[in-house]
């Protein structure tokens, strides 16, 4: 018998605006020692389904309409609060997406690790601490006894996710539900975490439900896949079969949208004879203040984020900037944009030095330099309609005479693939992808020469991601813009960038034509980055029989 057998699960949300049927009758089984991936875009109901199983959704507004979820013969959906607490975190454990927020910053790691044991098994403190130490060692954290005394902020993101896994495994669960556990992590760390989960799974014959939006991850880790769309399972099956022979149209669409499958020839920088250099950065250094000077610390402590960076950018070219979080990608962008003052070095935009501009002159510079941020939810003023958002730059820089504002804004909307009818709407009325289009329109409004895109598609679903990338390529080609494209996602970089620069600890360690960087990486670090990209084919997948 299957460890967990879900039949016809349906969950709805009862809101003021009506009933949202988040999960509409899904069924699946999970066997011991097996990894089942649930894949789908945001809003497809994949998380809601799993949260329903553990009764983690606030009821109301959520309501489980029907279904059975037999976990070793117990129906999870029928359990009362006390019964489900005995299962939750004990027999079924869970790890969440963001390791930065899922640990309590005021408690030591040790205190948090022993909590489930003390709670569920009423174990003594000393005994629990010994187990905690063993658990930390199992997830590959060295010097475990010392680490137990430390607080979450002393751990890196990857380390924290390891701690979360250790915590989930403390009470020796039979089933682990992992909700996008590596989405917030760098690609090299992601590879390590996958390996870790796999090892532990084999050692303990653990069943894993893996919720993700990333098919590449699915290929790497799962035995079976459930593809969800709008609350329904549209396809399920063996991972290898599904990748080889997708049945449902939506599955095919997801597979097509993986950036590595996008044709790299789509956009290639074409030299137009006169090589016009738009941006020249030489020997740039900048730092940010970690702790400002205060009464007790006269000297502010600073961190050198950008070290001796030089680069050039030609007209119509896209330069990819890749590296792990904290490598100085965003600091470099902010320094070029004059949001952060450089320590030394020069930045020339079309031959004009911009580091020496007076504050008054910077305003004119803004017309040539624009940015697109990662999070379209945070980069638009929630209290401004799209019209006002787009009007602001037009008005400020007198791009067009005031009689043409309306035409110009309608045109911008069309350009980024939105309807001019929607200009009166506010940002929250748009989806993530549409908001990113608005942000692109805002950047385009001043007719800039250079756009810096800071992880512009990282927060978007994979199919939306492909559309937004296409739009960006179209715009670059049409207006002969130059773009610095910052991303931690190598496959995205490969599909859009002409040249790629790899950043490591504030320095650009390698910069060349994109295909050259990918095919013949010169640096050890670049090779490591490339190896960590999840394979898009499930061929390395260990045979299910191994479990």
């Amino acid at each position, binding site marked *: 018998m299957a460890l967990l057998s879900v039949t016809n699960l349906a969950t709805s949300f009862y809101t*003021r*605006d009506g009933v949202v049927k988040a999960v509409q009758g899904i069924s699946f089984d999970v066997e011991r020692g097996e990894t089942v991936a649930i894949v789908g875009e945001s809003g497809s109901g994949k998380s809601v389904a799993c949260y329903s199983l553990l009764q983690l959704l606030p009821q109301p507004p959520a309501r489980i309409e029907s279904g059975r979820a037999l976990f070793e013969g117990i129906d999870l959906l029928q359990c009362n609060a006390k019964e489900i607490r005995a299962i939750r975190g004990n027999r079924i454990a869970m790890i969440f997406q963001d390791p930065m927020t899922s640990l309590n910053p005021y408690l030591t790691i040790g205190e948090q690790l022993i909590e489930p044991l003390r709670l569920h098994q009423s174990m003594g403190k000393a005994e629990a601490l010994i187990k905690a130490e063993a658990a930390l060692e199992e997830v590959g954290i060295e010097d475990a006894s010392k680490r137990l005394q430390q607080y979450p902020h002393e751990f890196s993101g990857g380390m924290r996710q390891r701690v979360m896994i250790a915590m989930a495994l403390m009470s020796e669960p039979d089933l682990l539900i992992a909700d996008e556990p590596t989405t917030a992590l760098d690609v090299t760390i992601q590879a390590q975490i996958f390996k870790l989960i796999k090892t532990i799974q084999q050692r303990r014959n653990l069943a894993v439900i893996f919720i993700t939006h990333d098919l590449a991850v699915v290929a790497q880790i799962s035995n079976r896949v459930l593809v969800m769309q709008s609350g329904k399972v549209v396809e399920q099956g063996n991972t290898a079969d599904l990748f080889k022979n997708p049945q449902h149209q939506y599955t095919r669409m997801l597979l097509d949208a993986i950036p590595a499958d996008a044709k790299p020839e789509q956009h290639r920088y074409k030299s137009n004879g006169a090589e016009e250099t738009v941006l020249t950065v030489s020997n740039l250094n900048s730092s940010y203040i970690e702790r*400002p000077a205060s009464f007790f610390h006269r000297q502010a402590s600073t961190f050198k984020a950008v070290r001796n960076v030089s680069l050039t950018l030609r007209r119509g070219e896209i330069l990819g900037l890749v590296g792990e979080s904290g490598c100085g990608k965003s600091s470099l962008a902010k320094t070029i*944009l004059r*949001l952060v003052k450089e320590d030394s070095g020069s930045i020339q935009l079309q031959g004009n030095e911009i580091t020496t501009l007076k504050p008054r002159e*910077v*305003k*004119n*510079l*803004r*017309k040539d*330099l*624009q*940015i697109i*941020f*990662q*999070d379209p939810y*945070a*980069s*638009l*003023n*929630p*209290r*401004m*309609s*799209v*019209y*006002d958002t787009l*009007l*602001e*730059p037009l008005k*400020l*820089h007198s791009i067009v005479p005031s009689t043409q504002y*309306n035409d110009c*804004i*309608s045109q911008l909307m069309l350009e980024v693939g939105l309807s*001019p*009818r929607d*200009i*009166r*709407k*506010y940002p*929250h*009325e748009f989806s993530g992808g549409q908001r990113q289009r608005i*942000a692109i329109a*805002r950047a385009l409004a*001043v007719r800039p020469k250079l756009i810096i895109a800071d992880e512009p598609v990282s927060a978007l679903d994979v199919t939306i991601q492909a559309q937004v990338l296409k739009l960006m390529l179209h715009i670059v080609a049409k207006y002969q813009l130059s773009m610095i494209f910052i991303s931690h996602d190598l496959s995205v970089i490969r599909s859009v960038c002409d040249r790629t620069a790899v950043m490591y600890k504030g320095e650009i360690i390698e910069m060349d034509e994109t295909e050259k960087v990918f095919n013949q990486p010169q640096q050890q670090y670049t090779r490591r980055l490339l190896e960590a990209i999840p394979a898009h084919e499930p061929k390395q997948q260990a045979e299910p029989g191994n479990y």
Partner: protein
Amino acid sequence: MSSLDPSGEQGRSLWQDAIARLGQNRLAMLGLYLLAFMVIIALLTPWIAPYSYETQQLDLGAIAPNARHWFGTDTFGRDLLTRIMYGGRVSLAVGFIATAVALVIGVLWGAVAGYIGGRTDAVMMRIVDILYALPFMIFIILLMVVFGRSILLLFLAIGCVEWLTMARIVRGQVLALKQQEFIEAAVVIGLSHWQIIYRHIIPNILGPIIVYITLTIPSVMLLEAFLSFLGLGIQPPQSSWGLLISYGVETMEEYPWLLLFPGLVLSITLFALNFLGDGLRDALDPKASKD
């Protein structure tokens, strides 16, 4: 959103949208009408008041409400309705003027401190702390002694004290808001600092500001009554709602109407204010109005 004009080529500002949304909120509109009614009555009082507010009819004494004196009379035989009408002039004025003073100083001070941050912020907020620490009464008495007693000065003095809390609330909000990417996007577009504060920061902190205003107006009205009671505010035979209520409390057992009517008028005004405040807060938040 039903208020959307389908052919809408024109954009409208947040305030225009907010007014349209406010118009659909019945409770808020009721509050607005009630307040407007109170203000109009207060403005017209000298012409429409049925009696003089100071003429005493000692032979009459305190009589219960009747056809000639709708709200009854007080212990000196003065018509209570007239006194409430005149009192409303003082109370509404103190409520609105003192709050406006607090609003302007507090929002600007807090927004500038929070936006600039660093040392400027530290100095500005320490000034607020120092003013907080000064005993309020001594401050007012000092002002009265130096500048002489006048109602306008009283309004200003109260406003000068109430802005401190406003500045703190606003600064906290701005600090959180400053981290948002749309503020950085505004810098990149080329807006000046004042434009950013005015266009991007203040509209996003209106919610807490409005809530605080609806709390400040009643507390200011009661503060005036307290000061007047101590002899620092307005003096009899002039009146204010706060004063009428505090006299009403003394004679509550014999002449309950002397407490009931001023209390009722004050309560209705405060309810109206709260309805309007809640409505405004929702109307100014595009996310709050789904219908």
